[in-house]
């Protein structure tokens, strides 16, 4: 597995962990209406450990003279960025449409809701990018140019 693949797996796991964490926090705040501090501390420690292990895993090389990226990686990354960019555009358009019908054309949302939407869009973009990279590696990654 090369650095691009490892980073894509990291992106995928990190995004899913974020979504799980958001769900857990939502249950704490909205349903239980109290913060479960020991559980939160355990979760934060586990996430930190996972992050450190991932960085070591990503930086570890198969061979001392192994290149980090090559022409195929760049091609795959470029396509994944395009797909991710399109998904962000579609998601923002969808969000605007939903908000238009839910709160009306002159309605307002709070700052924390707006921040949450931005974070959600960012994580979806990361998820789409990671999945697009992994799918392309599975399919061969197209053909080189030049």
């Amino acid at each position: 597995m090369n650095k691009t693949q490892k980073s894509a797996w990291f992106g995928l796991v990190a995004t899913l962990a974020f979504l799980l964490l958001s769900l857990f926090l939502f249950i704490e705040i909205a349903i239980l209406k109290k913060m479960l501090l020991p559980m939160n501390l355990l979760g934060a420690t586990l996430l930190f450990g996972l992050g450190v292990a991932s960085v070591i895993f990503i930086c570890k090389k198969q061979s001392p003279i192994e290149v980090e990226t090559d022409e195929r990686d760049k091609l795959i990354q470029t396509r994944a960025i395009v797909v991710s960019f399109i998904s962000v555009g579609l998601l923002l358009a969808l969000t605007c449409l939903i908000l238009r019908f839910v709160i009306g054309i002159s309605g307002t949302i709070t700052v924390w809701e707006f921040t949450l939407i931005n974070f959600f869009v960012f994580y979806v973009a990361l998820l789409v990018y990671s999945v697009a990279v992994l799918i392309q590696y599975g399919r061969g990654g197209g053909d080189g140019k030049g």
Partner: protein
Amino acid sequence: MARGEVRNNIRRLRFENGEMTQQQLADKAGVTRQTIIAIEASKYAPSLTLAFKIAKAFDVPIGEVFQYQQDSL
């Protein structure tokens, strides 16, 4: 309409060159092992520059490593 495919003899050439590993070839060509795997399996057609680098790693002309095969649809 004609459709082409780039075939290669990398696997054979690796074994003829002292059972060179995919990682050794990747290091010589300056790419990752995954790219060599994809090229060998004809899943990825390399750029002309990379094709020349691979041919140079085996010290053979490029035509001995890669062949263009045209299939009619």
